[in-house]
Structure formats: structure tokens, C-alpha cells
């Protein structure tokens, strides 16, 4: 009896691992098991192999000022090439003295995109703002009034072209996409069949074929004697292509509207278009704003394909800059530079869409 109640001293427990300070952070996040330690070492070795080389190439050994390509050869990057070609890469063959105009166009686009991120002005005011902005873009690019010289669309190159193709393409594809999505959900079999056929046909083929079609077949489609601008052809291709993808996004929103909403609208005596305009679309479109932003990012990246039909967007002007006989072989600098431009636009927009998604999900999460 006695030995059963006898107190046996327990072995002393190890103190808990400290949870503050750099060392403990390292232990918890990098070295908490053998496997993790190995992973950390591999990752650290990879970084040690790449980062110093990159820094040496891009900063330490880089040449920032040079008069010609020959003076710029070295172990590092030749940023003097970007300095020399900056205006050509950004604006292409737009008349040199007038390049403040495309610069303003780019700033207007950035301003419009930033303004659209502010949810307080969503609605009629934003649409108005965009209309004014796009009109201003047209005036600045074409010119011909207010003492600005007329510039034909062949000379619209570089970043403004990329932005115009993406933004105008999305803006004009949007109404078409809504009609297509409504058609796909329609009760009328013939309308539904034609809309499904269009959407699936466009989504099933690569953008390049749509661009080829627009550049080769659009002139054939028109009555004899009518010609069509190259830029307009590419723009039409983008509108037709983006509309099919947007239609699927909008359809996702339409399908998420509960049937009760539609029945309630019917009970109020609203007709199909009243019901769609006042009840269904406002709710459906609000739901799909994050995927809409993602589609826009896709369209923005896809504009780089117009080089196959001979338009000089940002990628096209960078390629053209590389053909200068005085500055040969600086492809890494040129591509890294425009990659940084594409990246900043896309990264900003994707972060914004993720933020919106979190905001929208707040109500649903308890």
C-alpha cells in the first residue's frame, strides 16, 4: 500500500523553446526538422549561386553611360543601351518632337486604371471618366486639331499601342460579352446554339489564328474598294477574342444569381430586358469583378502577340531597337526592361484583384 502512494520524482521537463528572437525564428521557420534543414541549405546554395552574379551583372559591373555599343562591352549589363533607346522602346516611330503626346496617353491610362481601383467612384461617374479619358487619348494620338500634327496609326507604337489594344479591346468586348452570356443562358434554342458555337469556337483556337484571320481575312470580307486599317484589324481581333472569354466570366456571375431573384422580378411584372437590366446584371457583374480583372491581365499580356501581324507594340519596338547595327547584342537588357514594365502593370492588377476578392468574401466568412 505504502509504495503505491509513494511520490516518485518526475524527470525534469525540457524548457519550452523560446518563441521570440532571431535564433528561435530561424529554428522554427528554417531548421525545425532534418528535412527542412536540408531544404533550407539547398535553397540557400541556390541563392548564393544566383544572387551575387545577378547583382554583379545588373549593378556592380553595369555600364551606365556609353556613346556606342562598342564602348559598352563588358561583363555587366549595358544600361546605356536602354538610356539610348528609351524613347524608341516606349513610343517607337511616333514623331520625335511630338512624343509628349503618347507620354500623356500613357499617363492618362495609368490615371484611369488607378481611378478605377477606388470603389467609391464605381458607377456612372467612372463610365463618364473613362469616356472623357478615351476621347482625350484619341485626340492626343491622332492629333490634327489644336495645332497638333496628324499622326497615322502606323506610327502608334510601343507602350501606348499595348495599352490601347488591351483597354479598348476589353471596353468594347464587354457589351458583346454580356449579350453572348445572356444568349448562352437564353430559353430560345437557336439563340443559345449560336452563342455557344461562337464562344466555344473562339475559346478553342489560339489567339494567333484569330489575329491571322483578322489581318488576312478581314480585308476579304469587306466589299471591294473598302480598306481597313492594320491597327483596327488587330483591335477587332482582340475584341472578338476577349468577348468569348469575358462571356464565360459573365456567365459565371449569371449562374450565381438565385432563381428567387428572377421569380420575384417576374412577379413584379418586369419584362425580360427590365429584369435583366435592373435585377440580374447589377448583382451578377458585381460578383465577377475579380475574374474580370484577371481576364484583363490576360488580355494585356496577349497584346504582345501582335508582332506576328507586323504591329510594333512594346515587344515589337524592343525587338526593333535590337536591330540597330551600332548597338548589337543587348537583348538581355532590352527584354529585362520591358519585362519590368509588363510585370509592374500585371503584378499591380493581380494584387488588386486578390484584395477585392478578400473584401468580397468578408461578408461570407464568419
Amino acid at each position: 500500500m505504502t509504495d503505491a502512494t509513494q511520490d516518485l520524482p518526475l524527470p525534469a521537463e525540457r524548457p519550452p523553446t523560446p518563441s521570440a528572437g532571431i535564433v528561435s525564428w530561424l529554428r522554427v521557420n528554417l531548421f525545425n526538422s532534418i528535412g527542412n534543414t536540408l531544404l533550407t541549405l539547398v535553397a540557400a546554395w541556390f541563392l548564393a549561386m544566383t544572387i551575387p552574379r545577378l547583382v554583379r551583372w545588373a549593378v556592380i559591373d553595369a555600364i551606365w553611360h556609353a556613346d556606342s555599343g562598342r564602348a559598352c562591352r563588358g561583363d555587366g549589363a549595358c544600361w546605356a543601351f536602354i538610356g539610348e533607346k528609351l524613347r524608341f522602346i516606349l513610343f517607337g516611330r511616333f514623331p520625335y518632337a511630338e512624343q509628349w503626346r503618347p507620354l500623356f496617353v500613357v499617363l492618362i491610362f495609368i490615371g484611369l486604371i488607378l481611378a478605377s481601383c477606388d470603389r467609391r467612384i464605381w458607377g456612372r461617374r467612372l463610365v463618364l471618366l473613362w469616356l472623357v479619358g478615351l476621347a482625350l487619348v484619341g485626340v492626343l494620338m491622332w492629333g490634327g486639331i489644336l495645332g497638333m500634327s496628324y499622326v497615322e496609326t502606323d506610327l502608334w507604337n510601343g507602350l501606348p499601342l499595348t495599352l490601347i489594344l488591351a483597354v479598348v479591346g476589353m471596353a468594347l468586348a464587354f457589351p458583346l460579352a454580356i449579350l453572348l452570356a445572356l444568349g448562352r443562358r437564353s430559353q430560345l434554342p437557336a439563340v443559345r446554339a449560336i452563342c455557344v458555337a461562337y464562344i466555344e469556337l473562339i475559346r478553342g483556337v489560339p489567339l494567333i489564328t484569330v489575329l491571322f484571320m483578322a489581318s488576312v481575312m478581314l480585308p476579304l470580307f469587306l466589299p471591294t474598294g473598302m480598306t481597313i486599317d492594320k491597327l483596327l484589324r488587330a483591335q477587332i481581333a482582340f475584341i472578338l477574342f476577349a468577348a468569348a472569354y469575358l462571356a464565360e466570366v459573365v456567365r459565371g456571375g449569371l449562374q450565381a444569381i438565385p432563381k428567387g431573384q428572377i421569380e420575384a422580378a417576374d412577379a413584379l411584372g418586369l419584362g425580360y430586358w427590365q429584369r435583366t437590366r435592373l435585377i440580374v446584371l447589377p448583382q451578377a457583374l458585381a460578383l465577377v469583378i475579380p475574374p474580370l480583372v484577371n481576364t484583363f491581365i490576360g488580355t494585356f499580356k496577349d497584346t504582345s502577340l501582335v508582332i506576328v501581324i507586323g504591329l510594333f507594340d512594346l515587344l515589337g519596338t524592343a525587338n526593333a531597337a535590337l536591330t540597330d547595327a551600332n548597338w548589337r547584342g543587348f537583348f538581355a537588357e532590352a527584354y529585362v526592361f520591358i519585362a519590368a514594365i509588363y510585370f509592374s502593370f500585371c503584378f499591380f492588377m493581380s494584387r488588386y484583384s486578390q484584395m477585392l476578392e478578400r473584401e468580397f468574401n468578408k461578408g461570407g466568412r464568419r
Partner: protein
Amino acid sequence: MASPSTDSIPRPARPPFWRNPAVRGVFYQLLFIAVVVAVGGFLVHNTLVNLGRQNIATGFGFLHREASFAIGESLIAYAPSDTYARAFLVGLINTLYVAVLGIVLATVLGTVIGIARLSRNWLVAKLTLVYVETFRNIPLALQLLFWWTFLREGAPSPRQAWRPLPGVFVSDRGLEFPLPQSNPAHLWIFLAFVVGLAGAVAVSGWARRRQMATGVQFPSGWVGLALIVGLPLLVFLTAGTPLAFDWPALKGFNFAGGGSVSPEFAALLFGLTIYTASFIAEIVRAGILSVSWGQSEAASALGLRPGLTMRLVVLPQALRVIIPPITSQYLNLTKNSSLAVIIGYPDLVSIANTTMNQTGQAVEGIALIMAVYLAISLTIALSMNLYNRAVALVER
């Protein structure tokens, strides 16, 4: 209080026929079809008139004419004296070749990166985050041009070729690697592999049935592995280890022997793989995160070990979320392989482009490409839908 007789209430007049929804539906559809047919007819009429004016014959007769252009790389025998039809076939095979390899590689790389994104190792999680954000946010066309120019201009000549691994050379002529020399014993090794595979399937089926009936477990996984690896290994050893490699070696100004891929193909495959892998990684990550933590806890409470929890509880549920978006990534990769035209890899689109420039048969050429891509897209979508049905949740 007599209830009002039904006769006293005037029966509402039948609405006029143009207010009948069914009649209106038919009318609207006829109108819509008429508009579509009219627009289509107008375009076709213009096209025929324009083609007639330019003296371009319509129809696919040109496919039987001699192509008379060379194709840089081909998996089947092709010479410029062959027909356009055969040139198209070469392009189609090249497209499928790069697409299938790209899908396999991107799936493997994307899954690894997606899982690494969720790693509790801070460094690994951040590194993979940087990978995903970088490659996802830069246009694929730019990435392809970068890799291609890098191989063409940045890489050294064959004499100073880089050697990342012994026997592997990277130069401005492309990538050279050793190939195993063919040997009659390889057929037997392959047969042994097939037999081992069949045996493993049979053993696992038998083990499952026995476990269902008696509850006794059998290590069918290890036995299966032993069969699949062991049988070919046994044949390999008894045949006297017939493994000789054909090493690439510098002969004059270029390499001879071994296998090689062109800079175009290497750049296209590499670019497509790392671009698509960054999207697949996010899909895999979202799929794993979508399985609620309670599922894993419940599995632990039932006594399942972590490996089994992953295999039996988490993965089947994650796959359900992963399959549909990954299908559209496979479709995207296949369609994006048409960007080959930018860097000059002879895929279907770039061969059709050459053909259209030579013959002027633009309508037929584009119709042909569209038909082929539609067929590929539908095939991938159909097979992935079948697979999706196999893993989908069976509800009431």
C-alpha cells in the same frame, strides 16, 4: 349570401397572338437566324468576289501540290518535294510533340512548386512565391523570345559549349545529350516491365479483395514496386547489362552522335513549361488549401498516419478542385504552343503561315488550323471530363 356566379365575372379575353411568349420566341429566333445568315452571306459573298478578282482558286486542292519549302525539324520523313498535306502533318506532329512534353513537364514542375508554396520552410515558400509571381506576370511571347535569343546569341559556339552535366552540351546550336544505343535486349526489358506492371495490378486487386473479405492487410505496394522494378532489372542483369551510350562529341564545327534538340525547340519547351507551371502551382496550392483542416484532424483521430491521410483523405478531395482549372491550363499550353511562329519552330501555325504566303490560300489555311486546334481542344476537354467524372463527388 349567394356566392357570385362564375358567369358574372367576364372571362379575360385571350391575349392577342403577338403577346404569346411561345410565338414571340419563335419570331425572335427566326429574326436572329435571319440576321446571322444575312451577315454571314454578305461576308461570304464579298470574300468570293474579292478572291475571284485576285484570281485565287478556292478549295483544298492545293494540299496535293508540291510544298517546295524545307522544314527545320521533323519527326517523320519530309522533303521539299513532298505535298503541302504532308507539310501540314509535320507541323501537326511537331505541335503535338511539344504540347505533350510540355503538359507532362509543367504538371510535374507545377505540382512540386505548388506544394513548396505551402512549405513551412520560410525560405522555400518565399522563393517559390517569387517564381510564381515573376513568370505569371510576364507575357509568354516575351519569355520565349528571351530564351530563344539567349540560346542563339548568349550561348557560346560548339567549341566553348557549356557542360552543365557530363555529356550534355549547351551551345548556340541547341542542346546535345547522350542517348542509349539500341540493343535487342531492350525489347525484352520493356516486356518484363509490362509483365511487372500487370503483376502489380493483379496483386493489388487480390490484396484489396482479401482485405475486404478477411481484414488481413498485405503490403501490395512494396510487392508491386518490386515487380515493376525488379523484373526489368533481372532481365537487364541476365542480358549482361547492355547499356552503352552514344555520346555527343565535337566533330569539326558541330556535334556528332547522341541526341540533340534545336534552340527553337528547347526555348519553346522550356518557356511553355515554366510559364504554365506557375499557373498550375497556384491551382495545386488552392486545391490543397480547399480541403478543410478538420478532414486531416478527423483522419488522425481515426488513426491514419500522415502519408495515408494525404493519400486517402486530402488528395482525393483536392483533385476534385484541381482537375477543372488544370484542364484549361492544358488547353492553354496547347494553344500557346502556336507562339512557336515567333521564334521559328515549325509548328502547325508557322507551316500554315508559310503555306498561306506561298499559295495565297488564306481562308483554307486558317480554316485548317482552326479545325485542328478545335479537334485537339475538344479531345483534351473530353478526356479530362471523363477523368473528372471518375474523381467527382457522387451526390444523392
